[in-house]
């Protein structure tokens, strides 16, 4: 005889479930840990075979990431006197001197501006559009929603050439505004659809109560609807940011000198003075940080529960 009941899982079931999660975490985290590790290896450790799990950590990769260096002769090196900084000393032992800063911080800054800029724009426009679609009688609503979604029915890169030509004639090539606009346009359909789903779930009675309690429609929207849509806004923002942050193809095509983001920049490090894997890994590591911080900050909003129970369905 067997019975099915909703009870606490047994210790063995818990142990099994726990080890599955740990196993999954190891599989997904391993490449990440390897990249972070490689960032602290010396170039020879990075390409050593068999791969080195334990190594002497060095900041060479990070120094190489942020600087450009040039080779000098022994005599020249002697004439220059003692190195003044720790990073100077680090590169001199390879017979190099620091020639100047690299463009990495500039590219990183571009990524931040374009990534967060397009995310903010996506959320502002997306929330407004989703609210309108959810609450008002919009003529041809279903067709419009389908049309918005249809912009994602092909890979965006399929229209790269028309976009390139448009951007060129509009003077948007290699500008921050152009990239923000492009990423917003690509993400907006996702943002409208996701947010409409979240707003649909918020009972309309809350707004009606606020309207009767003496608030305008707009006040009701931002004082009552927005706090309850926080979960949806947070997860949508994370999706939008991850896409804009990681986007590579358009960034390669449309940016070069001025508005280039980090993804197309990092591979170019490989070509400068040999295959400098530690520098590449260092760039990738730093590149991960903003998205990780952003996700962790918004994590508490991802937990549903504040709206639970206030309306009886």
């Amino acid at each position: 005889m067997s019975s099915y009941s909703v009870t606490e899982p047994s210790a063995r079931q818990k142990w099994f479930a726990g080890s599955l999660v740990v196993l999954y975490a190891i599989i997904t985290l391993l490449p990440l840990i390897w990249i972070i590790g490689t960032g602290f290896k010396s170039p020879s450790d990075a390409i050593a075979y068999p791969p080195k799990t334990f190594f002497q950590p060095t900041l060479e990769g990070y120094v190489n990431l942020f600087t450009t260096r040039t080779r000098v002769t022994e005599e020249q090196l002697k004439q220059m006197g003692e190195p003044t900084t720790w990073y100077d000393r680090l590169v001199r032992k390879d017979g190099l001197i620091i020639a100047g800063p690299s463009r990495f911080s500039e590219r990183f800054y571009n990524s931040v501006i374009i990534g967060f800029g397009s995310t903010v724009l996506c959320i502002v426009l997306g929330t407004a559009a989703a609210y309108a679609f959810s609450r008002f009688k919009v003529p041809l609503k279903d067709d419009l929603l389908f049309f918005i979604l249809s912009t994602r029915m092909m890979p965006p890169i399929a229209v790269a050439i028309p976009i390139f030509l448009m951007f060129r004639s509009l003077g948007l090539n290699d500008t921050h505004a152009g990239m923000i606009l492009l990423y917003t346009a690509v993400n907006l359909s996702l943002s409208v659809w996701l947010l409409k789903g979240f707003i649909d779930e918020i009972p309309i009675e809350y707004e009606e109560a606020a309207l009767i309690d003496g608030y305008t429609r707009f006040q009701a929207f931002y004082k009552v609807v927005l706090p309850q849509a926080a979960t949806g806004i947070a997860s949508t923002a994370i999706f939008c940011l991850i896409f804009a942050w990681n986007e590579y193809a358009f960034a390669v095509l449309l940016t070069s000198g001025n508005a280039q983001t980090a993804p197309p920049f990092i591979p170019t490090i490989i070509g400068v003075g040999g295959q400098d894997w530690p520098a590449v890994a260092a760039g990738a590591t730093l590149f991960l940080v903003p998205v990780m911080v952003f996700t962790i900050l918004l994590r508490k909003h991802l937990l549903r529960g504040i709206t639970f129970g206030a309306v009886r369905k």
Partner: protein
Amino acid sequence: MAQIRIENVRKEFGAFTAVQSSTFTVEDGEFFMLLGPSGCGKTTTLRMMAGLELPTSGRIYIGGEEVGMKRARERDIAFVFQMFALYPHMNVRKNISYPLVSQGMKKAEVATRVAEVARILRIEGILDKPVGGLSGGDRQRVALGRAIVRNPKAFFMDEPLGALDAEFREHMAGELRALHDRMGATTVYVTHDQLEAMQMGDKIVVMNHGVTEQFGRPQQIYDWPATKFVAKFIGSPPMNFLEFDGMIGIGGDSIDLTGKRVTVPASREGRAGALTLGVRPEHVQFVDGSAYRGRVVAVEYLGTTQIVTLDTPNGEIKARTPSNQRARTGELIGLDFDARTLTLFNAETGRALVSEGNEGVLRRG
């Protein structure tokens, strides 16, 4: 507090007409019931009064001022939703003070008002709790608190007890009525429960298919229904309908019900053809000598009274009699009807014929 007047209000949603030309008046301080089956337009009517829907045509007056096209926040009314609609991201105190904050009231005064309302509703102990974990009754009280805190011109309630369980409903209905009596506030209350309406209301509007069927005090509506729908909807068991072909002239005070002469209140209008005699179950009398007989089909014992179902020449009827009156299944019982309380309906239109008995109720509105 204010009088509310609805004049020829109509609401269409596309091709569907939710409310057809409603007219009624809610007097100042009245506990007013909008009663009807689901989909009859009662909630739509209430929402139009509150400003959550705009009427397609017609006028709405609150305190003498025409508000039909005004926004909800300009009408100075409070609304209690069936689902309570407490703001989930605020605690009880914030929920109750929210309507005051919108008026820009000073903090100290808000605190005094909230404390007073909490005392009236006996919810002082939960003011700092989040609304999520409250019981149904407490949520109901918080929703009421949010409504009464600003002293609005009128309270609108959309089935506020609908979400509570049966036992607690009774209790809350009593509490609501007591609260109303103490505050004397004009209240419009939507319900589909005829018992609730009779029990709590000063006045009732019965609606069906977007049409106002009847408007009056609970007893008037119970005793003198204007239509067969009202007669059937109000009362449990509902009014009995005895269908027959016959005629009655102006001033006529009796009808021929399959051979039996039945005295009715003197008619004010004449009709020949399909008629319906409406009799409340408690007005069916067992008279041994009567030639009009019914066979007992079933007996339900209810304590002091019993419901006897009888098969008559004009269809099945139910009688409410004292439970000590003997009635056995299969038995033939002579029947009579209380002549002063009968209503004749035009069987085709379903409307009551005006008579000496109901003219006071029907001619007024």
